[in-house]
């Protein structure tokens, strides 16, 4: 709780954040087969998909959760939307605790929260006409008084997202990936929400189409004053969208900071690693040595700080004691013993510095053990 307080204390007076998440947890049980349980007394295993995370999102702002597969970022999205129940923790939307409310309830609040999914080929019902897909939320929340008004509203939404009102009579398969994602967006904003959860909304799209969708989402934010929880694994996309960035690793937030701070002075070694893996289009860093190692299996994460087997700064404390998210610089919080103890070399700003672009990854991670020693099986 103290962590939430410190985050809350930082906000300007009089404007409560739209979403406050505190100590959120979601554990999934992995059932063992019946015979293994009976004969070998095997216990159910627990996957701590989300293991105690705290964040807040201010009105009209974007928080991005980034991380690699298995870090729990999509689980957070589903928890916030109420698509799955929480194990523990609080999700407070506009002052109301939703952590134990069933999906869809209370309707008055749920209308204001909508979600855009990753794969527009899977998230639209292939047997429905686009008009019906977009009108469904309008009917669910009884937002239109008459059929004619509903038709007008669907036409308006289609045109708002850059499609043609006539497209409403088509089926999803008649559209390209980018157009389908526009349909998903039209459906999501049909209820006039304040808050959109976007789970990798462009990772299934080609880059030229991704640019269209990202531009549209920024425009929508400006025009409609939307607040986004934007989930992505692509830091360059996040740089374009986010005001705040939360970096997740195996169910925990390792860094939570304003976007500029993350890019200008990344603190956590994992954040530095992620920044280092962004391919450089200027070709200035060709031939650099990539950082070794992979994300471990979330069923059996390393003890202490989950990142320690890959971390060049790991010490005995990191192997036993999980670090807490603590404030470090410029409003940023980091969960890292090395940062807290001041044993981490300052990071070189990537990109924002404008001038010297480093020629290898070593500057970010300090001295790195030879790759062979770090490979985990």
């Amino acid at each position, binding site marked *: 709780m103290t962590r939430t307080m410190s985050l809350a204390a930082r906000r300007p007076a009089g404007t409560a954040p739209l979403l406050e998440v505190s100590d959120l947890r979601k554990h999934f049980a992995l059932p063992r087969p019946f015979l293994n349980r009976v004969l070998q007394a095997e216990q159910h295993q627990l996957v701590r998909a989300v293991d105690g995370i705290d964040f807040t999102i201010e009105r009209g702002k974007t928080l991005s959760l980034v991380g690699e597969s298995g870090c729990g970022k999509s689980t957070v999205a589903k928890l916030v939307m109420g698509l799955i129940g929480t194990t523990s923790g609080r999700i407070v939307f506009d002052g109301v605790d939703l952590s134990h409310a069933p999906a869809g309830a209370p309707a008055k609040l749920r209308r204001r929260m909508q979600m855009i999914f990753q794969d527009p080929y899977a998230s639209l019902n292939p047997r429905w006409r686009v008009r019906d897909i977009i009108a469904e939320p309008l009917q669910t929340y009884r937002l239109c008084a008459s059929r004619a008004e509903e038709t007008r509203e669907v036409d308006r939404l289609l045109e708002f997202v850059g499609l043609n009102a006539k497209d409403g009579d088509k089926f999803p398969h008649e559209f390209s990936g980018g*157009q389908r994602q526009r349909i998903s967006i039209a459906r999501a904003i049909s209820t006039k929400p304040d808050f959109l959860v976007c789970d990798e909304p462009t990772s299934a799209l080609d880059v030229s189409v991704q*640019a269209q969708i990202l531009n549209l989402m920024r425009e929508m934010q400006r025009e409609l004053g939307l607040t986004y929880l934007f989930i992505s694994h692509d830091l360059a996309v996040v740089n*374009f969208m986010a005001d705040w960035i939360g970096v997740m690793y195996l169910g925990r937030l390792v860094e939570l900071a304003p976007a500029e701070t993350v890019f200008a002075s990344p603190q956590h070694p994992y954040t530095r690693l992620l920044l280092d893996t962004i391919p*450089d*289009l200027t070709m200035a860093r060709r031939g650099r040595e*990539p950082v070794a190692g*992979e994300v471990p299996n979330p069923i059996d994460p390393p003890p202490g700080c989950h990142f320690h087997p890959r971390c060049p700064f790991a010490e005995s404390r990191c192997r036993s004691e999980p670090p807490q998210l603590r404030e470090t610089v410029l409003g940023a919080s980091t969960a890292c013993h090395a940062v807290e103890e001041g044993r981490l070399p300052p990071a070189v700003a990537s*990109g924002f510095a404008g001038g010297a672009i480093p020629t290898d990854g070593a500057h970010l991670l300090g001295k790195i053990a030879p790759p062979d020693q770090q490979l985990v*099986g």
Partner: protein
Amino acid sequence: MALLEVDRLRVEFPTRNGTLTAVDDVSFTVEEGEVLGLVGESGAGKSMTGAAIIGLIEPPGHIAGGEIRLDGGRIDALRGEALRKVRGKQIGAIFQDPLTSLNPLFTVGDQLVETIRTHLPLSVAEARRRAVDWLAEVGIPAPDKRIDQYPHQFSGGMRQRVVIALALCAEPRLIIADEPTTALDVSVQAQIIALLKKLCRERNAAVILVTHDMGVIAETADRVAVMYAGRLAEIGPVKQVLEKPNHPYTAGLMGSIPRIGPRPERLIQIAGSMPRLSDIPAGCAFNPRCTRVFADCHVHRPRLAASGDGAVACLHYEGARP
């Protein structure tokens, strides 16, 4: 002479509603030891071009025109045993998803030994020794233990390392890598790309790297060919194509990639999307989306015209007019 010459390649798919041309008049060469990036968005024909080179086009698709020559000898019309001697031995392949490129019912050792013995005259024991060496070479720890494990016992990155070992173990001279890192996490992508590059350089093997990711190209390729709607839009040295793109499509593509650095108000975007193969416009295929379109673009289909150290298929360039 170039290692590989692709000359006016055309791949067609007959359908009930007419013939679709997936690869349309594509020509390029690959020199020995060179990394050629083949980029484009989905439906551009880049994977199909790669598949045509190793004879992996699924019927009813077929090569309908042009030639593919390896060391001057035609390989586009090979069948049966003759094709098998080229595929695997001369040209190796790496695909996107390592889990589907490996047989789940055999250990990685079985698969490596089989591949090695198919192409090289070695005994089982020798092949196994070589397989262990290969696993060590691609950075798999404890290779003498891991060789007897099954693909599901490896992580995604480790699996792709095994696939790289499989592609390289017959010592091919050309590797076709089709989106080799797309299914992997970002921190593993860089490792796999670096490994592939290092191994191919050491063995002087050329690579055709098929990808949609300009970042991967920027870090790896010597030259780049940009494809659009089954056609080559532009080809040239990586620096020229990425930094001073000639074709309006390449320019738009480069502008639409979000980057690290000061945040722009808007990304440059290309209107619309790639046309379906059944619906390719007359003239230049890019004309409905092009910001520099003029009357001729709707009439003439541009040819590749020399520009700088490369070539570009755009009517704004001299020599592109047919």
